């Protein structure tokens, strides 16, 4: 057996790491269930606190938050009919009717168990697929890596945007932002305007805090918490443990949701909401009682919950092996790894094998603690739903400001964060997605570096990208992704026009 596997398991099973995972799961459940707080925001708030921790402990905490955030989202979806996270939207369709019928505990138990099973399946995918993919990725050369990153960007744009042009524009703005600072090849200062603070570029995390947190704080000016409904439905929670009959009912939705979630998690940009709705749809089609769906079907809860939790392990596969984030959360995790001096990618398994396997096993523990904490502490956890937003939102605001400052002990980063917040608001006004910008900021420097190294090595011969088989393969995929997006956009407009006529 690979000694890194044993070392990784030992590392992930140390008391400090386990405690960090448990703390992450607790915070994740709380963050996930509060409508208006996404998992990304939760991680952004917690991230500055992890700077002082060891990398393995820091990542373990964030993984716990990621996994449990997905499950926590279902609590408010079931109790309030307000999904705590976008991934829990499909859960509300059947979860809330069950809660209204006095079966809130049963619905939550099913959601927690399905989340656990989906997460466990994606752990197995991560454990078996990630090392293999990393081994293949080790053979990639600069042109292949450039094309891979390029493909990652195009697929994210096509998934994340209603309009491909706006998605691509968002990504290009991100690429323009990463050109600020020292050029990665020669160290020449670019677009720094003689500002010392800009020489090392705009920090990814400050941009992230502004882009995600500020629009969310503004959103919450409008939304008021339905605390009365929460209290009423929470009072109905009697037994959370699912019965044998429910476990039998969950076989089909979990068998559909877990593989769909894991697969879509691997695809950059697809994410939890898409996986949840696809698995809900397939389960409904294959179920013996499709008419029950929408009126409180246990299968209608298990399918999306297993899928959205399976996405977590799937999204970690491209993040760890290729350095390409599958969703905003894994993009933040890449940022966290970079802060600790670890670069995700194929070399992670070679140079830091123990850490890589430690991360995989921390993910396993995160799923275990997720179900344990959720089942035991559910009755107390749901009380979080009644915390007044008037306290919660200002607290998040000051945590974001302090988080931006703590990054480099610099007020400049606080102003940059606010600037990105305004940019986020402007992008929302224009219906322009934020995720491509964020991912372009993560991948931009790699993209430039691989492009320039390839061109230098080939003496400025651009055909190098078409003569390397892997590179050609990724470029074809990128072209197909762009073509498909344009075609889908065109078709949807045609449909809309027909409807209008």
């Amino acid at each position, binding site marked *: 057996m690979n000694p890194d596997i044993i070392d990784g398991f030992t590392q992930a099973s140390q008391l400090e790491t386990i405690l960090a995972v448990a703390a992450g799961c607790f915070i994740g459940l709380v963050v996930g269930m509060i409508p208006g707080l996404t998992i990304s925001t939760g991680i952004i708030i917690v991230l500055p606190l992890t700077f002082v921790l060891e990398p393995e402990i820091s990542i373990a905490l964030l993984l716990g938050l990621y996994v449990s955030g997905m499950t926590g989202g279902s609590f408010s979806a079931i109790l309030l009919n307000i999904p705590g996270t976008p991934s829990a939207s499909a859960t509300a369709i059947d979860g809330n009717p069950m809660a209204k019928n006095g079966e809130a505990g049963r619905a939550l138990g099913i959601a927690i168990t399905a989340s656990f099973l989906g997460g466990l399946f994606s752990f197995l995918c991560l454990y078996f697929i990630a090392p293999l993919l990393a081994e293949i990725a080790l053979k990639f050369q600069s042109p292949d890596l450039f094309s891979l990153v390029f493909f990652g960007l195009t697929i994210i744009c096509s998934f994340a945007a209603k309009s491909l042009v706006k998605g691509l524009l968002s990504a290009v703005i991100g690429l323009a932002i990463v050109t600020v600072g020292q050029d990665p090849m020669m160290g020449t200062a670019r677009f720094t305007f003689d500002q010392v603070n800009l020489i090392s570029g705009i920090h990814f995390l400050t941009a992230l805090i502004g882009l995600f947190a500020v629009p969310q704080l503004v959103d919450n000016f409008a939304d008021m918490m339905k605390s009365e409904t929460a209290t009423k439905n929470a009072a109905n929670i009697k037994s959370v443990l699912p019965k044998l009959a429910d476990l039998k009912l969950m076989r089909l939705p979990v068998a559909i949701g877990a593989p769909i979630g894991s697969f879509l998690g691997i695809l950059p940009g697809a994410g939890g909401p898409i996986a949840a709705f696809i698995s809900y749809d397939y389960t409904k089609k294959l179920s013996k009682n499709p008419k029950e769906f929408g009126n409180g079907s246990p299968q209608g809860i298990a399918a999306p919950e297993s899928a959205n939790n399976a996405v977590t392990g799937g999204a970690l596969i491209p993040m760890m092996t290729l350095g390409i984030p599958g969703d905003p959360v894994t993009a933040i995790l890449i940022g966290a790894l970079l802060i600790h001096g670890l670069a995700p990618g194929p070399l992670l398994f070679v140079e830091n094998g123990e850490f890589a396997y430690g991360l995989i096993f921390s993910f396993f523990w995160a799923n275990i603690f997720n179900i344990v904490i959720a089942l035991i502490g559910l009755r107390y956890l749901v009380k979080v739903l009644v915390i007044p937003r008037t306290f919660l939102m200002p607290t998040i605001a000051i945590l974001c400001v302090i988080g931006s400052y703590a990054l480099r002990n610099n007020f400049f980063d606080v102003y940059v964060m606010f600037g990105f917040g305004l940019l986020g608001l402007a992008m929302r006004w224009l219906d322009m997605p934020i995720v491509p910008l964020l991912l372009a900021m993560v991948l931009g420097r790699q993209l*430039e570096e691989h492009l320039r190294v390839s061109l230098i090595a080939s003496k400025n011969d651009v055909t190098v990208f078409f003569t390397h088989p892997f590179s050609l393969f990724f470029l074809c995929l990128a072209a197909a992704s762009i073509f498909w997006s344009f075609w889908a956009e065109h078709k949807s407009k045609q449909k809309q026009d027909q409807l209008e006529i």
Partner: protein
Amino acid sequence: MSNMRRRNLIAAIILLLLCAGYAYLTANLPTRAIENTTQPSFFPWVVTVIMAVLSLGLLAQAFLPTISSDTPKTFDVPAKRLIYGLVLSVAYFVSLPTLGFVAGNIPFFAGLMYLYGERRPPWIAAGSILISLIVFFLFREVFQILLPSGILQGVLR
């Protein structure tokens, strides 16, 4: 012209202007006299070209009859509240280096509580003072992140 098309038009014009500014700055980047290598301005030029093409695409979309005229769901926030929030934030960010994190956070927190709908003065006072102090000491004592105390430097030792 529909609301969304008008927004696309405004965005396209702003992006084209930004693109022109970015191109000007790129053209003025220093060059390096090393053979067979790409210049520091190489990637920014690639970005400029793509941005210009896409901005023109967006401009064309603003005039195309097939474009969806749906106005996206943006914010259901009253404009007044949004403006007060922005003014409060700007005042906070400007005064933060002088006031420090405790003296700066208390009025900012109180202002936000009011904007989020809290109208009971004792709750606002208690919430803003307590939470600002708790967060400050949490970061300073537990996470060892030194936050500037500003005008309260003598008090918060």
